């Protein structure tokens, strides 16, 4: 019975550890299959042209989804990727910031300083301006 409690399984070391995850996956898939499979039989079923139309959040779809996006969006997306990933370095610091003390804090401050330099640079270069 211990098998179903994750904290007990951690100490052991074999493929049995993954049984709870497998059970979870089975339950999730089973629930989805069950609800989707059973719903057509439970409710009344009237197909009209209006109902079969494609729509998104109640709004009629307009045009093709695969159309080019403005290149400005590309620049913002790329800058997002850059600044987003840099944040990863805060994680090791956050895990043991007590042990690192003031020296660690100064190091992180320097890192953020370089970071802000880059941010200031892209603002000054006009990379975030939407209107021409």
């Amino acid at each position, binding site marked *: 019975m211990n098998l179903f409690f994750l904290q007990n399984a951690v100490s052991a070391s074999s493929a049995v550890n993954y049984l709870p995850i497998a059970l979870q996956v089975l339950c999730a898939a089973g629930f989805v299959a069950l609800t989707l499979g059973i719903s057509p039989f439970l409710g009344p079923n009237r197909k009209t042209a209006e109902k079969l139309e494609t729509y998104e959040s109640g709004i009629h779809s307009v045009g093709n989804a695969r159309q080019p996006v403005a290149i400005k969006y590309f620049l913002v997306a790329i800058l997002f990727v850059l600044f987003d990933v840099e944040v990863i370095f805060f994680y090791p610091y956050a895990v043991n910031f007590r042990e690192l003390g003031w020296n660690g804090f100064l190091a992180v401050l320097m890192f953020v300083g*370089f970071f802000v330099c880059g941010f200031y640079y892209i603002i000054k270069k006009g990379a975030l301006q939407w209107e021409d």
Partner: protein
Amino acid sequence: MNAIILSAILGVILMFSGIFVTSKTAIRNIATAGMALLLLVNIAEQGGFHLFNVNTHNMLVFSKFGLLFNSIAFSATLLFFLVSAKDITNVGINAAEYFALIFFISCGIAIVSSFNSLLLLFLGIEIISIPLYILTGSDKRNLKSNEASLKYFLMGSFSTGIMLLGIALVYGAKASFSMEQMHSSINAGRNAWFYAGLLLVLISMLFKVSAAPFHFWTPDVYDGAPTVFTSFMATIVKAGVFIALVRLFDMSFVGSGYDWQLIIAIVTAATLFIGNITAIFQQSVKRMLAYSSIAQAGFMLFGVFSQNDFSREGIILYTLGYSLATIGIFAVLIKMKDYTFEGFNGLARTEPVLAATTTIFLLSLAGIPLTIGFFAKYFMLASAVKSGSHLWLVIFAILCAAISVYYYFRVIQSMYFKTGLAETEPVTPVFRWLLAGMAAAVIILGIFPNLVLQYLYF
């Protein structure tokens, strides 16, 4: 440590001067002064003066060899700025950013010349490569430049992936990224991981220095990139990666009981052969110089092959001689209107100083005595003789050096013995004097190589 931190800060300063300074002359002056400052600070560190005291946890180790190499790389960059700064600002609209990227590359070079951990090797190589992808494609409207940059980027990041797999396998075997742990005893079943990993790292490094059979990207990229940046890429950057390769070998393969010398011997022979033979058939001087840089990389591989005092002296001299000569030739080439051999016809009559200095640089590249190129090649070959194995390689290298004389002399022949009107851009007297100074340095160091080598020992 001085050079690493200062070059990063200077890079940021140059980035911001692109916003706040509008005059291109001012940007040039800031960049040149910054590079001179970087050189001074590095020389001060050679004398034992440290600006910053950072605990690197033994991830970086600053040896005399690495610091001397830094000084040579920075002085070559300073010369490069002095002779071609105007051409750098003329490549595109973002003049300051080009200089900033070059400073970041200098930071990468300073890291790989002192790494003591595979993590720092990886970071240094990437800090060198990523700005280079941008510099290669900096001529945005030129299709050739675009193509070269895309090609370089795809191949470069592919080889980065291979290097990372190698590092991961080495880590799996040794449980550490530190170079000092490379000789620690390991679980016998994991020796295969260790050797496979080191070979993958070696392959990716050979790719970065464009050694055969991983050279195929070099001619295309060097040809497509703006000529000023080709000059920088072919000299300083290539020498920087070579230093990383030499240090990596020194600390990992040597003494591992693996017959790595045979691999390097075969790679060296292939590089020399392919570089020299293909260079003969080129019609454009720029493309010929690209192949010649592959051939010169073959000679620099001797520094990896032998791993003794001679080879360390040799690679320092080679870096210096090859950078001086190639930067000089490219500086002249940028001024030419026509990059083919015919474009050089009759240059001796229209621009005698340019023709004479180009001749000296070409003689140095070919390894004619009384130039620094001769001693560089001599030290390399002597180191291989001293290491005692694979003597056929030395004979093969001498034959290849003889072949190289043919295509270098073809340029001299068209400058002096063919009639024509070589057209050049207008050239300033300062430019002529600088070239003459570089040519004088090539000859003086060719007579007294100890002027540089003494710094290796005290």
